[in-house]
């Protein structure tokens, strides 16, 4: 495609704002799979900016790779990759003001967390359950909380963050702040009653909440077709009285544009909105189902999506714009992340494991008598054993 053929009108500007969206069958896309722009890129996407975004995505990709290695070495017990979903999470991050807006995430959102500025050291500490874990070793690997970034604690129970996200948004409205709430979930989550209840309430209450479906097309072994008979997820927004946007989740430019647009719409007091990012989970659901290809999906499908790799797409775009990332430069970037992770793992492991005594803290704001008794009992037992 030559630049002359590029559609000069960015699709986001074409979206009607205050009223409910006309639903689109095809996701909004700015950059084609081969890296050529389909629409004129908004001026903000200078080569420098695109390189920056590429850097964050590559960092997240390599973080995943290193953590899988950690898992294989038996240094942690669980990991759920977000490889393939970098454009969705990094793109979404850019519509969120870290530490200002509030986020109710789900467990696959560590790339979002990194992009929002949660320090890698904190994430690694949490995955290792080390003493430096801000969540104090209480939850499974990467079910973390980061107060500074307003990243609320992750519950493993699918979709049960949705009604609380609506509540946070209602509180923001009540308090008259200019914050919004962002709530993320997978495609599978949209089958749960909690999802529908939370969406409905948000619509009825005009709560300033941006709902983002990271549609990676699989919920462990169930694909979208097994999950719902509706064409896609974003059309469900209509039932709850909010606009629904459909975006190519592997196109960082499109995700940023659409999420920013939707977030602004929410911020302006119009009520909630839903964005569906169509993407793909390239790896297995978690280390517990490393056999995905054997049981429920085909190698061809995975190959096809590997061809839509969001990180590679930015590289192709940069090449097209005449600012390629040289292979040496890329290798150096990767090596730097690996060194970084290695160092931080050593640093986190050196802090040791949280003491058993803290087991009894944080259950309540003050420790009731029965927990003091249980702690004393365990202390006697532990000290007796050490003798």
């Amino acid at each position, binding site marked *: 495609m030559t630049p002359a053929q590029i559609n000069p009108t960015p699709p986001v500007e074409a979206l009607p704002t205050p009223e409910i969206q006309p639903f689109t069958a095809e996701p909004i896309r700015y950059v084609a799979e081969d890296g050529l722009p389909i629409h004129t890129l908004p001026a903000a996407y200078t080569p420098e900016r695109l390189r920056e975004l590429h850097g964050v995505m590559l960092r997240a990709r390599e973080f995943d790779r290193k953590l899988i290695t950690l898992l294989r070495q038996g240094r942690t017990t669980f990991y759920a990759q977000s490889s393939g979903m970098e454009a969705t999470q990094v793109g979404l991050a850019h519509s969120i003001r870290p530490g200002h807006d509030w986020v109710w995430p789900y467990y696959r959102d560590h790339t979002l967390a990194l992009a929002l500025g949660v320090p890698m050291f904190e994430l690694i500490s949490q995955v290792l359950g080390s003493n430096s874990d801000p969540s104090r*070793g209480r939850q499974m690997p990467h079910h973390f909380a980061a107060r500074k970034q307003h990243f609320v604690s992750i*519950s493993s129970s699918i979709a049960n963050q949705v009604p609380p996200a609506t509540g946070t948004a209602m509180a923001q409205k009540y308090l008259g702040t200019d914050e919004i709430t962002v709530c993320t979930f997978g495609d599978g989550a949209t089958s749960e009653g909690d999802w529908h209840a939370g969406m409905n309430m948000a619509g009825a209450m005009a709560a300033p909440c941006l709902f983002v479906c990271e549609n990676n097309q699989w919920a462990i*072994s169930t694909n979208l077709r097994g999950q719902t008979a509706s064409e896609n997820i974003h059309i469900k927004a209509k039932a709850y009285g909010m606009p629904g946007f459909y975006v190519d989740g592997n196109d960082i430019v499109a995700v940023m544009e659409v999420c920013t647009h939707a977030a602004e719409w929410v911020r302006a007091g119009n009520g909630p909105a839903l964005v569906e990012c169509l993407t793909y989970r390239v790896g297995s659901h978690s280390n517990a189902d490393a056999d995905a290809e054997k*049981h429920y999906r085909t190698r061809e499908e995975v190959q096809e999506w590997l061809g839509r790799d969001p990180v590679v797409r930015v590289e192709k775009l940069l090449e097209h714009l005449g600012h390629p990332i040289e292979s040496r430069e890329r290798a150096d970037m990767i090596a730097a992340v690996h060194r970084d992770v290695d160092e931080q793992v050593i640093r986190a492991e050196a802090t040791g494991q949280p003491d058993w005594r803290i087991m009894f803290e944080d259950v309540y704001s003050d420790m009731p008598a029965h927990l003091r008794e249980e702690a004393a009992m365990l202390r006697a037992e532990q000290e007796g054993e050490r003798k």
Partner: protein
Amino acid sequence: MTATQERQDMKAASEPRTINLITAVTEALHEEMERDSRVVLFGQDVGARGGVFMATAGLQATFGKERVFDTPLSEASIVGAAVGMAVRGLRPVAEIQFADYMGPGFDQIISQAAKMRYRSGGQYSAPLVIRTPSGGGVKGGHHHSQSPESYYTHTPGLKVVMPSTPYDAKGLLKAAIRGEDPVIFFEPKRLYRASKGEVPGHDYTVKIGEAAVRREGSDLSLIGYGGVMPDLERAADALETEGVSVEVIDLRSLVPWDRELVVDSVQKTGRAVLVSEAPRISNFMGEVAYAIQDAAFDSLLAPIGQVAGFDIPYPYVQDKIYLPGPNRITAACVQALNY
């Protein structure tokens, strides 16, 4: 098949075999589906994948997608649909991926399944089975380690079962599927592969509501169920080397539970130590303790001992220390013996 072949097969089928607990579950499901075409099986990932723990592996290939199928990710729909199917005459066996995720289906369990027979004056019933892995010891953090049985034992209308051996798992699951009531069937996940034992080659069931005496003894009754049972055995071994005779009882089912066997045992031994890994407050063993003091007060030589989980959300890093292992159990027994 020739007559001789058939006889040979039957002979092979009647040999007892040693299997693990999860295989016992799979075999029970397989045999019940073969026996009764009304039995259908569904949940998340139970089909092609065979369940997150592989308990349903191979069943879809054998019985087809009509009888073994994946549902949308919605426990309310899974349990609610099971209720509707049961009312209409099927025998649904639903899998909930982890006991920790029954929450979204809780209302359907307690408001529909449990009360169907009673509120309709016996006109309707909901004979369904909900199978779910529970308990800790697998480094799963609180969302993959909890022991929520007391929420369900507190609801009249439900039967609540938790086996600890392959024999019981198979026999109790078959009984649950053949029964006329809704059954919550907890499978102690840390015993899935760790618990091995013999099962008969022929069809059998284990009656829901009967406890099992794992070993006879005269000095103390050590009572538990589910994932803690191997630790009870270890504690009993340790005490026996000190000359203490311990009676070990596996409750196997909590509603209904074997009050008579427990009371008889405590009347004989005079001492009871109750073990479970669920948090202590509102723990089902509080019910057992009440029954013992009510019916065997005069026989008690020591206060009833209890070993339970701590009253905290199940922690990730301190996974092992949370569980009432053999040492904590032995200590409670020694305390009762020295009273």
